[in-house]
């Protein structure tokens, strides 16, 4: 393909990692992105920034997932950190660019809103660029900057801004919503994330993959298997040594088990937001049952310490696998029974139907992922389009709904429970005998891996140095993409719909904040 002046393309990486790479100069970047042939189903995953030695210290990789099982990477090397913004042609790059500006000090020319994103102004001065490596990562100490003044958009008689958070009622993760209104309807919403920013990617630097794995699992503790799987798969691709077949299939089983638990939790959240406490408590008890079973068969309630580069750390044996499949069936059929009763409950349906509508075209522009995207009519599932672990042997059924409202999202979560249960029942009979670990000693280089976490496409990009230690790791979490799309879904709906729309998105703050 020809795209932009001076662009050249090439293939890189092992066989199971087909990526088309377009090298371009910074000045030509927007033209190159604009000229990419439009492929329905292409998804912008994220932006990887690396700082290397002069003369061209800045290396940027813009990552897209292609619908044909490959990846598309636009690679930019630049002398100084002034890169044109592509958010006008690829709207999903809006937040990744803001993140790179905050952490590396890259001025994306033409971006409408830079500054105060990851590093809040009240905690860090604008000069702080903590992720820089060659320049010493100066400004990493917290130095209070200006007091935070929420930006106002709505100018109308009687218009006011209602701040919610970062600490609000109940047992909620910390995040702030700025809701602008003149009365009943939300006219404009902003999400202020990164109150919980822990700097996981910076903490990983300089550690061996085995140690960094602990951090990957704890980015989002409720989806630890997905994070560990993405990280381990990236490291294994770099080593050119995939995990043994038994480990791959067991990982698939663990990932589906985690999806069931996560979706039951999300459904409980949806039901709780509509105020129906009996079915909500029913689902919370079902989730607890799955947590107990996780600890009984795998040692840890949130499946920490199982997936590791090279395979798995343990093997529960056939009896435990059979017990897990039986328990999954018992819990899922129980949850489905509650869900089916809910679909006949008017007070439940009234709160979900035609509320928080995201039309398919809008979902594509926003680059939404996971169940939220599938509820807006897209058959986007990385287990099918970019198979990893054992998914090429047990392709899952993809649940798609077209309405894009809260009820469509509820139905996607519900149908995915059935699909995951079906996968587990198939897997139990297909897991081959054999070892669960293989030696994995990666050399210098980079690799990436995308997995379908319970909340959507999760990508880990890892660069190792000559000693096999992590030089840079970049996480592209599904929740960040979906948080970016939330303000669109709540606009023009009433205040009391807000918590319900939020619950149907099934978002995690820790996942996005990292």
């Amino acid at each position, binding site marked *: 393909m020809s795209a932009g002046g001076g662009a050249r393309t090439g293939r890189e990486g092992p066989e199971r990692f087909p990526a088309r790479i377009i090298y371009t100069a910074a000045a030509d970047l927007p033209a190159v992105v604009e000229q990419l042939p439009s492929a329905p189903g292409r998804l912008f995953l994220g932006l990887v920034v690396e700082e290397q030695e002069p003369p061209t210290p800045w290396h940027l990789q813009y990552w897209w997932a292609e619908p044909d099982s490959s990846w598309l990477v636009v690679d930019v090397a630049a002398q100084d950190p002034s890169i044109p913004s592509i958010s006008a042609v690829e709207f999903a790059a809006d937040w990744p660019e803001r993140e790179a500006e905050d952490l590396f000090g890259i001025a994306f020319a033409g971006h409408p809103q830079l500054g105060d994103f990851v*590093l*809040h102004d*009240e*905690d860090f001065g604008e000069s702080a660029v*903590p992720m820089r490596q060659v320049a010493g990562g100066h400004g990493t100490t*917290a130095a209070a900057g200006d007091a935070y003044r929420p930006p106002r958009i709505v100018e109308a008689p009687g218009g006011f801004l209602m701040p919610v958070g*970062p*600490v609000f*009622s*109940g*047992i909620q*993760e*910390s995040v702030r919503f700025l809701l602008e209104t003149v009365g009943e309807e939300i006219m404009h919403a902003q999400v202020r994330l*990164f*109150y*919980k*920013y*822990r*700097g*996981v990617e*910076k*903490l990983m630097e300089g550690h061996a993959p085995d*140690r960094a794995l*602990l951090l990957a699992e*704890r*980015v*989002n*503790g*409720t*989806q*630890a298997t997905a994070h560990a799987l993405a990280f381990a798969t990236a490291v294994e691709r770099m080593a050119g040594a995939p995990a043994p077949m038994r480990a791959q299939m067991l990982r698939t089983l663990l990932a589906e088990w985690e999806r069931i638990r996560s979706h039951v*939790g999300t459904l409980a959240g949806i039901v709780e937001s509509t105020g*129906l406490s*009996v*079915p909500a*408590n*029913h689902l*919370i*008890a079902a*989730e*607890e049952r799955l*947590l*107990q*079973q996780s*600890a*009984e068969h795998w*040692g*840890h*309630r949130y499946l*920490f*310490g*199982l997936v590791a580069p090279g395979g798995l*750390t*343990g093997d529960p044996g056939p009896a435990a696998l059979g017990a897990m499949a039986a328990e999954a069936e018992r819990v899922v059929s129980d949850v489905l029974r509650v869900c089916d*009763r809910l679909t006949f*409950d008017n007070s439940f349906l009234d709160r979900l139907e035609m509320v928080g509508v995201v039309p398919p075209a809008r979902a594509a522009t926003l680059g939404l992922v996971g169940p939220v995207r599938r509820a807006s009519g897209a058959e986007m599932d990385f287990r099918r389009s970019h198979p990893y672990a054992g998914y090429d042997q047990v392709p899952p059924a993809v649940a798609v709904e077209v309405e894009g409202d809260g009820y469509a999202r509820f139905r996607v979560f519900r149908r995915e429970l059935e699909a995951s249960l079906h996968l587990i029942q198939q897997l139990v009979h297909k897991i081959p005998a054999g070892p669960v670990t293989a030696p994995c000693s990666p050399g210098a280089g980079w690799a990436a891996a995308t997995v379908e976490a319970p909340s959507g496409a999760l990508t880990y990009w890892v660069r190792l140095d000559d000693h096999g230690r992590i030089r840079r790791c970049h996480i592209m979490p599904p929740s960040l993409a979906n948080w970016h799309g939330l303000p669109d879904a709540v606009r023009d709906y009433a205040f009391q719909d807000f918590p319900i729309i939020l619950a149907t998105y099934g978002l*995690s*703050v*820790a*996942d996005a904040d990292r």
Partner: protein
Amino acid sequence: MPWFWEGMKSPIRTLSRRRPDQPPGVTPGRPVATALPPGATWNPGICPVEALQEDSGAIAVEFDRCVHCMRCQQPEAGVAWAYDYQWARQHTPPLPRAFQHSIHVRIIDAGDCGACLSEVRQLTGPVYSLHRFGIYVTPTPREADVLLAVGPVTAGMKAALREAYQAMPTPKRVVAVGVCALNGGIFADGFAVEGGAARVVPVDVAVGGCPPPPLAILDALQRVIGRGLARSGEVRA
């Protein structure tokens, strides 16, 4: 109304007060001090956070550092695990007797990964049913007797945690839940991390683990009012 009958018909799921350890899996367990076999040496590489150290022929456990990586649970590591949940340590006297039957808890997420918060959420569910102990979750710090903090306290949440504590009436207690809230845990070295709730507010009861199971958090809350859970689990080598 149909949901009311649905709730009446469903079985009681709440764990027994006397034997809360009945179903397996309520606790992931934790490593405990183990005597080394004669002539054996401890491989310090097993524990990535240096919670386990060799000390005169035995493996000593500093549980406050443990992040539940589960690596010492492998049989070849030779470390005994206790399946208990009385993990809380109390630094100050409990609240006065007047609080014995009703305390209100304000929960603050100071940067946790979601696992600790999920365990706290389970506490309010039907299986652990926090309310039967007279412990209630309140949305406002003005009505709270206990501040329950999870997470390593990030730069963004430091002010919120401090202000919530200052807004609470006295007498008040702080419960730090999870290894992150104790000392920052795996995130302690982060540039955006304060490293434990004790750096911002005085901690009265601390419960380690990654994450501590609901029963361990319940035990910590019970200690605030001068009680504690009756039973605990067995030790398996």
